[in-house]
């Protein structure tokens, strides 16, 4: 699309805004947002983050907040989500979009490659705090770890050289949490291409994270009592697929012989 068409579209939208004084505020906000996006596309230097944030909030306020006073009134008093969700920071995998989560449904942690590290009060207090709050205070019923296709974090993990040299301040240290997944894939799936190995690692890493969840005593207790279910998932945005699986965890009594 040449810049002329952008400018024509922007001019037409601006005219619409100024001509139609009685345009509903929702439509007006949408037009402003669309104008801002077109301006950004036509000339990236013109993107105005302040305007983008402002118009985004106005859309939310008019189309959702004010249209659902009961829901938002209840939520203002407290939250009782059924899910604790671990999802990647990737801008393309937002669970509110891909799983249609409404406000109040899912307590969320978002980090590189949706990882759950093992219990460690020194190294991993952020994740620990979120799990602690979700399980003990909010009493969530499900913990879901969602991996995804083309994950930069997993690719980074798979790309760490054999001698373990790292070039980053944090990234490689963080993604090494799921080194067991990488080792499994590299040793068992040698015939696959690097890209296919990465896809497998995305799913294996979810299973490593599910296993790490059990290193938190209150999670373990809740799973045994069946008050929390652990689930793994993988969102493939190349093919538009979503896989969901449970972690089967049993404690069988030992026999005294």
């Amino acid at each position, binding site marked *: 699309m040449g810049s002329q068409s952008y400018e024509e579209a922007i001019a037409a939208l601006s005219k619409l805004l100024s001509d139609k004084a009685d345009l509903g505020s929702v439509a007006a906000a949408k037009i402003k947002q669309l104008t801002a996006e077109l301006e950004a596309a036509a000339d990236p230097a013109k993107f105005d983050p302040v305007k983008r944030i402002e118009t985004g909030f106005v859309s939310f306020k008019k189309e959702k907040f004010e249209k659902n006073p009961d829901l938002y009134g209840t939520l203002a008093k407290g939250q009782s989500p059924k899910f604790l969700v671990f999802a990647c920071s990737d*801008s*393309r995998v937002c669970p509110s979009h891909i799983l249609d989560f409404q406000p109040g449904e899912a307590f969320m942690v978002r980090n590189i490659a949706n990882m759950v590290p093992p219990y460690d009060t020194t190294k991993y207090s952020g994740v620990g705090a*979120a799990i602690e709050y979700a399980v003990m205070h909010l009493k969530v*019923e499900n913990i879901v770890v969602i991996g995804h296709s083309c994950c930069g974090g997993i690719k980074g993990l798979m790309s760490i050289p054999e001698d373990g040299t790292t070039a980053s301040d944090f990234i490689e240290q963080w993604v090494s949490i799921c080194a067991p997944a990488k080792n499994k894939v590299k040793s068992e799936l040698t015939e696959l291409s690097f890209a296919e190995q990465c896809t497998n690692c995305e799913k294996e890493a979810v299973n490593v994270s599910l296993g790490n969840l059990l290193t938190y005593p209150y999670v373990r207790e809740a799973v045994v009592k069946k008050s929390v279910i652990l689930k793994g998932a993988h969102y493939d945005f190349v093919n*538009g697929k979503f896989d969901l699986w449970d972690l089967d965890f049993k404690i069988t009594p030992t026999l005294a012989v």
Partner: protein
Amino acid sequence: MAKHSAEVVIEGLKKILIKEKEGMDEEVQGIVEMFMAELQGGMAASHQHDPDAQRLERGFDFFKNKIFDKNPEFFEALAKKQQPRFLVIGCSDSRVNPPTILNFNLGEAFMSRNIGNMVPQFDQLRHAEIGSVIEYAVKHLEVANILVMGHSHCGGIERLMELPDPTLTHDFLDEWVKIGLPAKNKVLEQCNHLGTEEQKRLVEKESVKNSMANLLTYPFVRNAVVNGTITLRGGYYNFDSGTFQQWKLCTKPMP
């Protein structure tokens, strides 16, 4: 993972049925079709006693049918590359999903979510989780904006205000929320006359500013801010009044 294998088998069986249809014995065809039906039923049955799993499947089906399948060019381009303009650090609170509150579409915002939307100071031992998100966003995605977004009735800030608390201890939560201590101390010092609820609202906002300041302890953030390639922003969503405030860190000298 049984679900994957079932899908593969069903696809294989479909191909056989189509290929062999003319020559295939009717009885054999019937058996294959029955087997396929059982497999498909088995897939649905695997979540039969789990309404929460069904909720997730339904949520994805809605997204797939109403959004993903209707915008193939958009999703094809997105699958190749993400170019978000924002790194947003938000709270894990289920009520304050930043993409919902600010109407961000997929691809617009790289997200970090933790208790109290906190950014601790640079620490390679204790804080690799947030460090890796910031590092990836700044060095690899080259985001132009980092937005720290706070909100009203934050459970993390509430806990911070309760400390020290000899009656209840946590393994992780109390140490984590102490990242916001400078904000709490500042508000208590300057606004001791205010009631607890008012103080909490102020600490929620001050904690955002504290986190913005902590961002500057990351050398790659500091360099980008000095070079003018990144702007640090703060935001506050008050869901009692339904309002959103935003502010930014100014780096130019004031006259």
